[in-house]
């Protein structure tokens, strides 16, 4: 073996030091997490607004890795009102998935830890609100799958290949006694009903099939049926259509929309497709490098985007009808999550920097009652009364389709 260079020795020493620090951290946080019989007073809280299903306040989720602490979610605050859909948009690695995993408390342990913040869930069934960062693991198991359920990105890997669809659907009732279905025959009946609800034809046959016998779209329907089987208050959909084709995506989005109005559930929709967000969401949160840079209603975000990152995202969508020869692209790439700068994380890629950008990370500025942004440039615009130019995002196909519709009539 070759002799280690000075550089390597230094690096190894540094890793060792970090590992030691991490071990201490794991111990501290894991002990807190593994506590049993936590008295209810400790995790019982009050919602700030009783109409909200979920309130996340100042959430910090860290990954204690060997190269340093990664602050994947860094002070995120947002609410999800009952019956509404919240879209979370951002590039990969911006912390949108980690936010959802934190809510479900299924982070990769022991590296991933919620280090600070509150996640308040309004459980209608019990008429109480709980802080999910403080509840015991056993209590979390009850909540997970019955009050909150999740739809993952890859329907191919979400389902277990060695069990039939039916068995996997029945599991929800097997583990959640509070749903009040315990007889096998009743479970089967209910599961088949759920399959029918998500538009699967010939549900009794699908019930006894294995996942590999179904197509991608069908599998995603099964996953949705699974998520719905407990009538949850909140459905977290993590890129539910990214792995699917456009035509199948249209089917699934249509299904989700119909089911939402039927069940009066809230949806937290995580995606990087702005088209999907515009279509599905009522409220939008834009994330960048672990922080929220802009939040507001869909119309706020799409008609009056204020943060340069949001504007950049919208401009970089390919569209031939804009007549421009070159697509707009945001220069550079996301900063290293281990060594985040002290100033605005987007500064090095931003073309609208003002003097204040060189200092502290910007605070959330209120633009309207619903629209907030973390940017000095937007703040100055607001103070000087400058309206930001609207990004025209009319779809290229809009006119064509309207013309076709008329033709058909």
């Amino acid at each position, binding site marked *: 073996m070759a002799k280690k260079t000075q550089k390597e020795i230094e690096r190894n020493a540094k890793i060792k030091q970090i590992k030691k620090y991490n071990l201490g951290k794991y111990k501290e946080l894991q002990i807190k997490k593994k506590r049993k019989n936590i008295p209810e007073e400790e995790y019982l809280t009050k919602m700030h607004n009783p109409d909200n299903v979920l309130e996340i306040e100042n959430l910090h989720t860290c990954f204690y890795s060997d190269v340093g602490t990664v602050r994947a979610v860094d002070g995120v605050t947002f609410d999800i009102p009952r019956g509404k859909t919240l879209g979370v948009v951002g590039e990969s690695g911006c912390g949108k998935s980690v936010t959802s995993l934190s809510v479900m408390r299924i982070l990769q342990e022991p590296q991933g830890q919620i280090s600070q913040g509150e996640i308040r869930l309004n459980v209608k069934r019990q008429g109480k609100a709980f802080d999910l960062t403080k509840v015991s693991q056993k209590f979390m198991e009850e909540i997970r799958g019955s009050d909150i359920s999740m739809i993952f990105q890859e329907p191919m890997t979400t389902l277990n290949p060695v069990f039939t669809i039916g068995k996997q659907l029945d599991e929800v009732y097997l583990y959640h006694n509070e749903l009040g279905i315990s007889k096998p025959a009743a479970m089967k009946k209910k599961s088949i009903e759920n399959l029918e609800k998500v538009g699967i034809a010939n549900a009794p046959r699908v019930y006894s099939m294995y996942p590999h016998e179904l197509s991608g779209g069908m599998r995603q329907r099964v996953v949705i049926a699974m998520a719905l089987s407990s009538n949850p208050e909140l459905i977290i959909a993590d890129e539910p259509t990214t792995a699917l084709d456009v035509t199948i995506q*249209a089917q699934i989005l249509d299904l989700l929309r119909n089911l939402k109005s039927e069940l009066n559930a809230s949806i937290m929709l995580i995606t990087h497709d702005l088209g999907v967000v*515009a279509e599905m969401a009522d409220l939008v949160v834009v994330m960048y490098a672990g922080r929220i840079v802009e939040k507001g209603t869909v119309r706020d975000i799409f008609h009056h985007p204020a943060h340069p990152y949001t504007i950049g995202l919208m401009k970089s969508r390919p569209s031939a009808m804009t007549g421009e020869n070159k697509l707009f692209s945001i220069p550079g790439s996301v900063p290293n999550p281990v060594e985040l700068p002290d100033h605005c994380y987007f500064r090095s890629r931003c073309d609208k920097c003002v003097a204040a950008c060189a200092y502290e990370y910007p605070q959330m500025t209120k633009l309207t009652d619903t629209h907030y942004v973390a940017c000095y440039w937007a703040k100055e615009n607001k103070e000087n009364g400058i309206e930001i130019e609207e990004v025209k995002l009319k779809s290229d196909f809009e006119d064509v389709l309207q013309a076709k519709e008329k033709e058909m009539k």
Partner: protein
Amino acid sequence: MAEETKETPVLKVVDLKKYFPIKQGVAQKTVGYVKAVDGVSFEINKGKTYGLVGESGCGKTTIGRTLLRLTPPTGGHSFYKGQDIFALSKKDLRVLRPKLQMIFQDPYSSLDPRMNVGEIVGEAVREHNIVPQSEYKQYVLKIMKDCNLKSYHIDRYPHEFSGGQRQRICIARALALNPDLIVADEPVSALDVSVQAQVINLMKELQDKRGLSYLFISHDLSVVEYISDYVGVMYLGSLVEMAKKEELFKHPLHPYSIALLSAVPVPNPDYEMHRIILEGDIPSPANPPKGCKFHTRCSKAMKICSEVAPEYRDIGGGHMVACHLYNEK
């Protein structure tokens, strides 16, 4: 396309077929065929981009692989500047290889993790003796610069790069051989929107500079619309419609093309949806429906559709379509 036929197209595909046998039993007897590509014809001229769209499983990728002879074809011809690729001997094919390159979908799995960027980009250059040994390193650096990669990247390994950078390495690798045609198989599907724009811009820029031709395979209609000159829509192994980009996106004719267009989410919250939602899934290519393959999901299916397969023909101005709706016109 009448005025363009004088020039020999860079690539001409005639009646391309690729069947995969289904084997069963102990003796591995062939019991049927999956007709992945069934009689596809098109051509690409110099400096143009041909976009190929369709759902997954419709045979887009198989076309790309077969016409470069990465998998042996079942039938048909593929001409590179008048030379039949399928009839070449192994030795001749090797000479031709540098001219036809491919960019794969997933930049994470298509780069060897144990080779650094210099080796990845330069390996084939050395194999094919594109430049003399003395200019080798200079050449690799020049190609990397063309693809917006920094010169100090040359000693780095793929895992040190982000998705967009990796895709640029893949483009550099293809470009290093000075190709005429690049088959790009979903090159931006695995990337984020902002990075997607960087890669597409690069591809367009290189096309203008070097007069490259692309066969651009994708399921994302907005990307295809942006980059292509001609667009072909595929369904279950065959082309159902082909036209110039402007024509296809402004006046789509085939019900499948219309449904595809209407399925694209519109980034405007005020837009009222009148979506044509296709029912069900794409049928199995091992057992395609009789007559028109699309009739099982078509909203305008007539009696004739389930009996006779429509002819793929020109209905004027180079707009090809295979549908009974446009028979009389």
